[in-house]
């Protein structure tokens, strides 16, 4: 490598853009050529000076930008909506039963049409069977035992029916497993757990206990499984929670449920926890307490 070609590589080396071979050659040259080494060190100092030239974004600028973007997009959305209502296709009468702001949403997107209260307008078109093609936005249990759902398709609509209505059930099961919004998942489970005697509902609860990313949803699902605490599947899921869940509240709830029945498998799990739980002393103490209450040995000897 010549001095001239070496100098062409300096900044690429500093930017980490050389191939292994190029870098090897350059490093070899720098070891034997004092002049190039001096030039290279100057280039490094230049880079450092340029680093310091980086501007700091003024404190509130990012927040201001985010706010005005949100406003602008909100306006676009409203514009779209008013176009639609002018078309007379949809009637916007109902305010959201749940403030969208709580979901930290940018107000955009769907044409966000609200339909009339059920009964006051024409019946919505029949719901296609594949609920999976939709997204449940809102769930509202009614005193009569009916449930009202707001569902996105290309627009939103209100569905209403009992828990034994297979369409309603299907939407709720879908929302419990698939909604992007943990709040919706919790509410779906809250409603569904009334039917935890059905296999499909229990499967959904077990799946939420095992896999839901949100601790609140997992807690709610455990609550729903309470009447089935002695079922082998439930116990297996709870034991898994006890050993692997990262949330102490969820694990404590799992202990409560498991110790409802004094069974050997529970005792084993608790003893294992007392032995191995190092991170969370609360869980360890709780396990010890549960074992004592069950008159079981705290150690395994």
């Amino acid at each position: 490598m010549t001095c001239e070609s070496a100098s062409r590589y300096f900044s690429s080396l500093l930017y980490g853009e050389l191939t292994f071979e190029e870098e090897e050659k350059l490093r070899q040259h720098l070891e034997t050529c004092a002049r190039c080494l001096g030039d290279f060190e100057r280039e490094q100092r230049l880079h450092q000076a340029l680093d310091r030239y980086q501007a700091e974004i003024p404190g509130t600028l990012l927040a201001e930008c985010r706010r005005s973007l949100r406003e602008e997009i909100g306006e676009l959305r409203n514009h779209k909506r008013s176009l639609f209502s002018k078309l007379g296709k949809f009637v916007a009468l109902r305010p959201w039963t749940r403030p969208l702001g709580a979901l930290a949403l940018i107000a955009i997107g769907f044409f966000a049409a609200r339909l009339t209260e059920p009964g006051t307008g024409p019946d919505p078109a029949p719901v296609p069977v594949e609920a999976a093609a939709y997204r449940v936005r809102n769930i509202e249990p009614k005193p009569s035992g009916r449930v009202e759902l707001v569902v996105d398709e290309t627009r939103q609509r209100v569905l209403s029916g009992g828990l034994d209505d297979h369409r309603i059930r299907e939407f709720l099961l879908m929302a419990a497993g698939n909604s992007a919004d943990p709040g919706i998942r919790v509410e779906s489970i809250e409603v569904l757990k009334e039917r935890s005697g059905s296999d499909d509902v229990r499967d959904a609860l077990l799946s939420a206990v095992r896999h839901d990313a949100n601790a609140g949803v997992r807690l709610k699902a455990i609550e729903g499984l309470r009447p089935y605490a002695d079922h082998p599947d439930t116990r297996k899921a709870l034991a898994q929670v006890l050993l692997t869940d990262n949330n102490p509240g969820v694990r404590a709830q799992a202990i409560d449920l498991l110790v409802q029945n004094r069974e050997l498998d529970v005792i084993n799990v608790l003893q294992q926890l007392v032995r191995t739980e190092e991170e969370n002393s609360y869980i360890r103490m709780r396990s010890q307490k549960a074992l004592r209450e069950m008159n079981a040995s705290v150690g395994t000897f």
Partner: protein
Amino acid sequence: MTVVRESALSLESRPAPETRQTALIRAAQKGDELAFERLVQCYDQGVLRLAFNLLRCSEDAADVYQEAFLRVYRNLHTFRFDCSFQTWLYRIVSNLCLDVLRKRKSRKEESTVLDTADGIHDRAEVIPEERAEANPQRRLLSGELQRRIEAVLSNLSPRERMVFEMRHYEGMRLKAIGDALGTSEEAAKNCLFRATQKMRMALGDLV
């Protein structure tokens, strides 16, 4: 939908970044407001930093930010995953920034030609006065060095400035820069080389 639920939108889940990002984009394309907001927030600090560092003016940077994400909002449905989302976004952002730089450059050249006969030299003297915005970071540099850096940066071509900015301050790979600017990695590399060459020439005696 299962994918979206598991990987995209719960704050507590931490899947591989690519999967998460893809799921966010898909959800935002379907009109999910929360996903769109999250998507914006994955990238908007970088976008604002690039625009501000490049343009050194809060209002211009905020304009670029706003326009860039509005374009993303309007055109997200056309994004087909044939390049990375970052590349797609930075294509929009860099075009907007280049427009501002080019406009400034032509304004400045017009006024310099009017003001002096010896354009290039005088431009370098004039610029620091124009950019007197306070910036605490700059105090770390000696006054002379700072003025010279400002002068040399503003004398880079808009493209050179953009490539330098993306590589030096944003840490983007040359390949990604080339993609964002609609050119090859090699062309981006040459552009960066010219930029650093100019800076070495202008500043070498000071460091």
